[in-house]
């Protein structure tokens, strides 16, 4: 187990290193420098020079690379070109909003997805099952930002049940929960479809197992077998995919946060890209990659602890 853990963590660190290197190389591959990109064509040479010095671009490349890595490791992600605030501070300010949004979306997806998957198995082969199959494919394929806009129009603008913009008042849980419902639902919908399909497929596999056949021989109802005996085994692949799912949920947050003008990593990075504020974009990308890799690695280690067969995958 220990050697698997070391290998897995080593791989994650190596990937972060490559990502950082690629990100840094990208800046040098393009014509012009980040300072002129951010300031636009009408910047004065003095202004450009000042920004170059502030971003450390006046130093030799190896010093720049070294500084970039050293600073990133100590949590210093540079400064916003416009407001001159530290990028790490800006991320720390909005990230809890995105995390909360992701957690609520994942909870909705888990409850609804597993529920629908179970329903499909209980009524396997009947009309309900077929309708649910079409419904899950549709939920997987419809873009979440389109769903977000429709939800906004119906439940915020027409019915007025939920706020149309923002993340709620700080410290007021009621308003924060009201503000998270619509964006979380929009993000969750894709994963409701995914999980419903996954649970259905893995449960059908379990349904032919010996212990389920025995339960059936004892005359238990289909619903009881599904909930009490099959779900427990069928849920394992769901646990495995939740960590990866969390990463993709955070990606859809970029679009959905913008639709609801909700402060978060998504709105932060989108506005930074529009202003071509390179330090903020780089900081957000690095932070999100590191966060995502941490979640996936932890999930892998947990799975390896629960299921020894997983440990063999990195061998050889």
């Amino acid at each position, binding site marked *: 187990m220990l050697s698997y853990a070391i290998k897995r963590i080593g*791989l994650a660190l*190596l*990937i972060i290193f*490559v*990502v950082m290197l*690629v*990100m840094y190389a*990208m*800046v040098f*591959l*393009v014509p012009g420098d980040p300072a002129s*990109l951010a300031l636009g064509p009408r910047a004065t040479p003095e202004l450009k020079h000042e920004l170059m010095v502030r971003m450390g671009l006046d130093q030799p490349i190896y010093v720049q690379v070294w500084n970039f890595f050293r600073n990133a490791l100590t949590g210093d992600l540079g400064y916003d070109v416009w407001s001159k605030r530290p990028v790490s501070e800006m991320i720390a300010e909005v990230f809890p909003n995105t995390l909360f949004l992701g957690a609520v979306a994942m909870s909705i997806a888990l409850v609804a997805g597993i529920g629908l998957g179970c329903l499909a198995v209980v009524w396997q082969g009947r009309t309900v099952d077929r309708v649910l199959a*079409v419904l899950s*494919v*549709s939920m*997987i*394929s*419809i*873009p979440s*930002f*389109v769903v977000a*806009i*429709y939800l*906004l*129009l119906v439940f915020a*603008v*027409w019915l007025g049940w939920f706020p149309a913009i923002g993340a709620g008042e700080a410290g007021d849980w009621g308003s924060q929960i009201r503000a998270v419902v619509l964006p979380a639902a929009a993000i969750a919908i894709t994963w409701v479809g995914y999980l419903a*399909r*996954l649970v259905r*497929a893995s449960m059908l596999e379990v349904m032919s197992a010996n212990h389920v056949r025995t339960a059936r021989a004892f005359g238990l109802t289909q619903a009881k077998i599904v909930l009490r005996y099959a779900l427990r085994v069928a849920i394992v*692949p769901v646990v495995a*995919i939740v960590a990866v799912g969390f*990463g*993709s949920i*955070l*990606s859809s947050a*970029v*679009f959905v946060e*913008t*639709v609801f003008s909700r402060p978060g990593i998504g709105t932060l*990075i*989108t506005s*930074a*890209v*529009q202003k*071509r*504020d*390179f330090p903020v*974009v*780089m900081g*957000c*990308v690095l932070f*999100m*990659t590191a966060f*995502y*890799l941490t979640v*996936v690695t932890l999930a892998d280690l947990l799975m390896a602890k629960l299921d020894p067969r997983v440990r063999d995958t990195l061998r050889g």
Partner: protein
Amino acid sequence: MASGRRNVWRALAAEPLGVMGGAIVLTFVVMALFAPWLAPHDPFKIDVMHKFASPSLAHWAGTDQLGRDLLSRIIYGARTALGVAITATGIAGLAGILLGLVAGYGPRWLDSLLILCFDSMTSLPMIMFALAVITVLGPSTATLILVIILVSIPGYARFIRAQTLSLVRSDFILAEQAMNASTARIILLHLLPNVAGQLLVVLSMDVPVVIMLEAGLSYLSLGVKPPTPSWGNILYDGYVSLRQSPGMVIIAGIPLILATLGFTFLGEALRDALDPRLQMRTLT
């Protein structure tokens, strides 16, 4: 071969959803190809006197905030969506085949290096990488296509590599090697035809994802630039004027929903008809 093809058609025709998906896709393809003849108006013609017009006989889907005909813009938007999707998945597919074959059949150190690159790419949240590239190159349709190519290549290359590795030990390749066939001959004549067909199914399943990405980034004003019509920037125009004219945003979302559903239904039916073994890959 001919009877095999007929079987595929029969299997496709037996799937009502696949047929429906096929019909939707065909409609959008016709729209994209014949946009200048099908569009009732010039999609760029501004007519401020008639902005936010409701659907009428003159403007079937109404007009936008500049009085441009919405239906014409949506029809031309199909051209943008399909153009970007086909160009990007096509190039990414070719590059994926090349890199996948090299990784699967080439020397081991090269394989490890490529795998590390692919894994680093796929471990980046896709949209984050896309945004980083757009910041450096600046938003445009060309950047958008490049971004989609870059984020898609690792997945395709990994798929081709896995297929190649499973083929490398098969008897017919070993026989070729025993007969001293050149590497180029083995790759081009024996490996390529066996892996390319399966990738085609994977590519077709990715078209809706690419359409979604194009529209999403154009919606964020980071993709196709106005006034070129894209379903994403049409949706954005509708979103901005949501309170004055909610009809516009409702209509603007419909082509996106229909196109992603149509391509997905068709893709799934194609996959089931051609290669049921791929089912697990797309399921998880």
